[in-house]
């Protein structure tokens, strides 16, 4: 029994040697076959990773907006066919904001928002940035932390004090590596004291840089910068995700009532519901991931057909080789084992290179498009399994056919 196992073992070893020699002898065919596998596996792994990564990034961007965020924008202003965009119309006032705080249940935090663009001058430098007026609640609503200093307070808002919290990009442009907290910055020639530095948040949903801004109390912004009594928007945080729908309805009817809109008239405001957007975006990105997966599946199939072609085309040459081997005494089992080892080696090697290059390609796309590719084990197993199955099947099939031939028929095969 022991010797039998030994014989089988050593014999497989010898056949493996024959198989590897045969692969080396036919470098072109071997590499073309492996290439089919590599392309198939790599594209599946890469595309699924890119899809997952994109989805993860979108999800994280949405949650970076804050928790249970509801934003009311003033409607867009149409004048002479020019649409000035959301928040441009004059429809939401501080009185509206106060009424919302009073009457909409489940609101846990609120921040009226004013927004303008201005030159900021400090430290002898000059930088054009966006100036945003908010309430002290804003950081809580946006789930945003300070890297240094502190946020302005209710008292600052009440007194329209000239204090500012600065975004990391703006701080870097104006102060370089210096700590901006405690420094002074002039906005429209009005000096502000910087009391806080925001943590970096990266690109927002629209692709704009959220770190390039200066936040000041909304009262200060209205009184000293814009002189306007209208708000761009009101940011609201709702107590829980399940209450957002109801809050949005309350908000809508309250504002319609306050703006005296009759049934049939359009809203003069827009409500951005974070949960609704998140649900839509998530389902869209899932579809995109699925689509990418399908495209990758097709390339796996095309790769498989490539493997099949090469294997079948090589039947002629290999049948003669098989004939020679049988003529000098190879058993049919020897031939089958040899081709099995060849096919498995190619498939595994191709699969391995495919996985590596797929992961590499996904990382590369991630670097270029600025997100983390998420390689999924499932896609690796699937791609590997399918390509190996195709490789082994079409590697073995011609061998099986040829091994069953009479040696003389195999030798004569043209």
């Amino acid at each position, binding site marked *: 029994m022991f010797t039998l196992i030994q*014989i089988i073992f*050593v*014999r497989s070893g*010898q*056949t493996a040697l*024959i198989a590897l*020699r045969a692969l080396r*002898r*036919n470098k072109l065919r071997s590499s073309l076959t492996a290439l089919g596998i590599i392309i198939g596996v790599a594209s599946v792994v890469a595309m699924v990773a890119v899809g997952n990564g994109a989805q993860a990034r979108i999800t994280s961007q949405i949650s970076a907006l804050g928790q249970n965020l509801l934003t009311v924008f003033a409607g867009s202003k149409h004048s002479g066919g020019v649409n000035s965009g959301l928040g441009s119309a004059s429809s939401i006032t501080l009185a509206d904001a106060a009424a919302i705080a009073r009457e909409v249940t489940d609101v846990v935090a609120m921040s009226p928002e004013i927004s303008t663009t201005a030159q900021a001058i400090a430290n002898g430098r000059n930088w054009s940035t966006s100036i945003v007026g908010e309430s002290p609640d804003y950081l809580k609503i946006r789930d945003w932390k300070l890297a240094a200093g502190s946020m302005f307070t209710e008292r600052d808002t009440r007194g329209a004090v000239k204090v500012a919290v600065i975004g990391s990009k703006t701080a870097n442009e104006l102060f370089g590596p210096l700590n901006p907290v405690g420094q002074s910055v002039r906005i429209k020639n009005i000096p502000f004291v910087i009391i806080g530095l925001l943590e970096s948040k990266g690109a927002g949903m629209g692709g704009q840089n959220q770190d390039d801004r200066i936040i000041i109390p909304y009262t200060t912004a209205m009184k000293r910068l814009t002189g306007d009594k209208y708000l761009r928007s009101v940011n609201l945080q709702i107590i829980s995700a399940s209450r957002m729908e109801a809050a949005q309805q309350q908000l809508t009817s309250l504002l319609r009532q306050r703006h005296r809109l009759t049934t049939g008239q359009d809203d003069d405001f827009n409500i951005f519901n974070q949960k609704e957007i998140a649900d839509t975006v998530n389902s869209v990105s899932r579809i995109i991931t699925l689509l990418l997966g399908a495209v990758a599946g097709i390339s796996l199939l095309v790769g498989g057909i490539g493997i099949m072609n090469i294997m079948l085309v090589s039947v002629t040459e290999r049948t*003669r*080789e098989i*004939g*020679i*081997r*049988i*003529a*000098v*005494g*190879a*058993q*049919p089992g*020897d031939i089958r084992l040899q081709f099995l080892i060849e096919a498995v080696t190619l498939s595994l090697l191709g699969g391995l290179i495919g996985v590596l290059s797929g992961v590499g390609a996904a990382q590369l796309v991630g670097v270029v498009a600025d997100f983390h590719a998420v390689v999924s084990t499932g896609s690796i197993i699937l791609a590997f399994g399918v390509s190996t199955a195709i490789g082994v099947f079409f590697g073995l099939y011609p061998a099986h056919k040829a091994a069953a031939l*009479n*040696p*003389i028929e195999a*030798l004569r095969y043209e």
Partner: protein
Amino acid sequence: MNTPVIELRELVKTYQTGEVEVKAVRGVTLNIQRGEFVAIMGASGSGKSTLMNTLGCLDQPSGGTYRLDGVAVAGLDRRELAKLRNKKLGFVFQSFNLLSRTSAQDNVELPLFYTQPLVTLRERRQRAMEALEKVGLGSRGGHHPSQLSGGQQQRVAIARALVNRPELVLADEPTGNLDTRTSIEIMGLFQELNEAGITIVMVTHELDVAAYCKRIVVMRDGQVISDTLNGNRRTARQELATLNDAEQTARLG
């Protein structure tokens, strides 16, 4: 009395190609003893190759019996036939049938890969080397068939046939693709092997080549029509010497 190496009784081989039945060998009875050196001659299409393939266990007869070393081949399965081809027989093809893109050494080693009991790597190397030396190609082990002349390729094929020390070497027109001088060299090699005790059966349609054999069997239409001992046998060694002299003279003149 010794059992013949080859014992044929009314051997028949019929090819079925579509509707047409081709009777390639029709009743050959023949005994070949150990140590013989037989030439099988005959016109093209007379059934020589068919007979040889059957003798080499590359193909199965349609009728009659074939005993190799006293064993009836018809009763053997594929595995046992493979074993016979591996151990007892060495087959030399007219078209060499070497593995391309494979060194001469590896080509010669090929049968040893399939030998039971297993041959160790070192022994495989060594025996292949010896076989190559025997055919005068000791220094060409690393060459690929495409880097060798026709005669050299045929020598590699002969070395492959010899590597497992067979009792019987079968050669189907081994000199068919070679020039006169190379043919004589190959025949010299066969004569040496035969002197060393190996039984040789070869096919040729050239009388010049058959003249180096001890016995000449002539076939026509799938049957043996004459079977004679070769009275005035040529010796390749002498012929080559004469040829060398002639070349020498030609060069001087």
